[in-house]
């Protein structure tokens, strides 16, 4: 971004107790509220993850807040164009901390299929603009992919994993 990507100044809390912090982190991991925010194809799969079949509510993450002020998680679910980029950075900055970002889909990770010589309109990877916590590859990823990303994010917050990783059978 020509007009200057982002800068963040992070400060820890004023008072910090190790035990309290642990509990609050546990609470944070179990109550991740995503922001209502859709970009492209992956947004439909994000919606599907919130619907009856995949039901992201089981993990307490179905409270989609339309205002960034009340959200914890930003799911970048689609191609980030140069016109959209300042908006995304603004929205990310307007979220109160602690906040997390999931880059969902190849477009958000690297520009995906829309990278070619002479491209003039997309950002090749949202991590050039804002810090990303979990990447979900796929074009688009399945809703299960997003659920797994949520698990990964919980693991990142608390340090422990909710379910054991299933054995690979192939």
């Amino acid at each position, binding site marked *: 971004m020509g007009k200057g990507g982002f800068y963040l100044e992070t400060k820890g809390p004023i008072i910090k107790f190790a035990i309290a912090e642990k*509990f*609050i982190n*546990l*609470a*944070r991991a*179990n*109550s991740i509220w995503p922001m*209502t925010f859709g970009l492209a194809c992956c947004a439909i799969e994000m919606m599907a993850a919130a*619907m*009856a079949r995949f*039901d992201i*509510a*089981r*993990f*307490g993450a*179905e*409270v989609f*807040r*339309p*205002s960034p*002020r*009340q959200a*914890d998680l930003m799911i970048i679910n689609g191609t980030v164009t140069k016109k959209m980029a300042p908006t995304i950075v603004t929205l990310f900055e*307007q979220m*109160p*901390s*602690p906040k997390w970002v999931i880059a969902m889909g190849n477009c958000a990770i690297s520009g995906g299929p829309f990278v070619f010589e002479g491209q003039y309109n997309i950002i090749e990877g949202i991590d050039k603009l804002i810090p990303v916590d979990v990447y979900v590859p796929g074009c688009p990823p399945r809703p299960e992919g997003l659920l797994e990303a949520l698990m990964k994010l919980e693991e990142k917050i608390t340090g422990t994993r*909710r379910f054991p990783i299933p054995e690979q059978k192939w």
Partner: protein
Amino acid sequence: MMNEIIQIVGKETVRVVIGLIGVLILVVVNALMLTWLERKISGHIQRRIGPKEVGPFGLIQPIADGLKLLGKEILTPSNVDKPLYFLAPVLIFIPVLVSFIVIPFDVCLQVKDINVGILVILAFSSLSVLSILLAGWGSNNKYSLIGALRSVAQNIAYEIPLLLSILPVIFMTNSLSLKDIVEVQREGWFIWKWQFFAFLIYFIAGVAETNRTPFDLPEAESELVAGFHTEYSGMRFALFFLAEYTNIMIISAVATVFFLGGYLGPFLPGFVWFFIKTYLLVAVIMWFRWTFPRVRFDQLLNFSWKILIPAAFINLIVTGGLLKL
């Protein structure tokens, strides 16, 4: 005068403190319960499970939410009107707490039976309108502003049917004390004794007063993002949330007292009956939310003025007539 005050403080402090602790616990537990209930009910209506992994049946989910919101940064946008912006969440909580003074949970389970009980609730509930207006105006955000203005118009429009629907009951009991009103119903609940329509009017107006679907215009998500609390984050937002759920309970509790015989009922202890009735009504309000679309603003206002208020007038006249003729 001074002596009297000291006397009262000395005599009543124990009761006040016990009552306060009880009410505070009730408010917090109720809000946690209701958020859980809402998410579970919505889940089951929508053919999914709802919160499940956090604690047994997801029961710890609301606690996790609360703790998370506690550990969340509180942002104050730079161009808000700071005094108003700070005052709004404080104001919204006053009516919530004060209303519980007069609600009779059982024959002797009441903080204080004030003889103008219902007036206390009604008077203080007007504060929440003020709070929403302050929140909307103070935020300096256009969605908030529209949400707040809608909220005010809506609240004042539905306050009249609300008043008019409880008036017939007062005509029949000649008392404003909630406990007296319950006691009179030993002869029969008012919902069966002439006041069925009053109950309906009250309930509809109550749903509107608490800004719930189908009257949730102030926070209409598809139009106004998050409505009047768009700019509120962390704990301040949680207070709005807490107040909303407590308000639902208060509206249902007053309906229980006025029309459903309050704590009266066979076999079970009184407060159990009271909570059963109250939460049934709460569940119905939640059921509304997950079934109906939202009404439009003019429809909302006109529904009150064209249907509810005339109906309430007729109901009042009929009650007056039945009592006298």
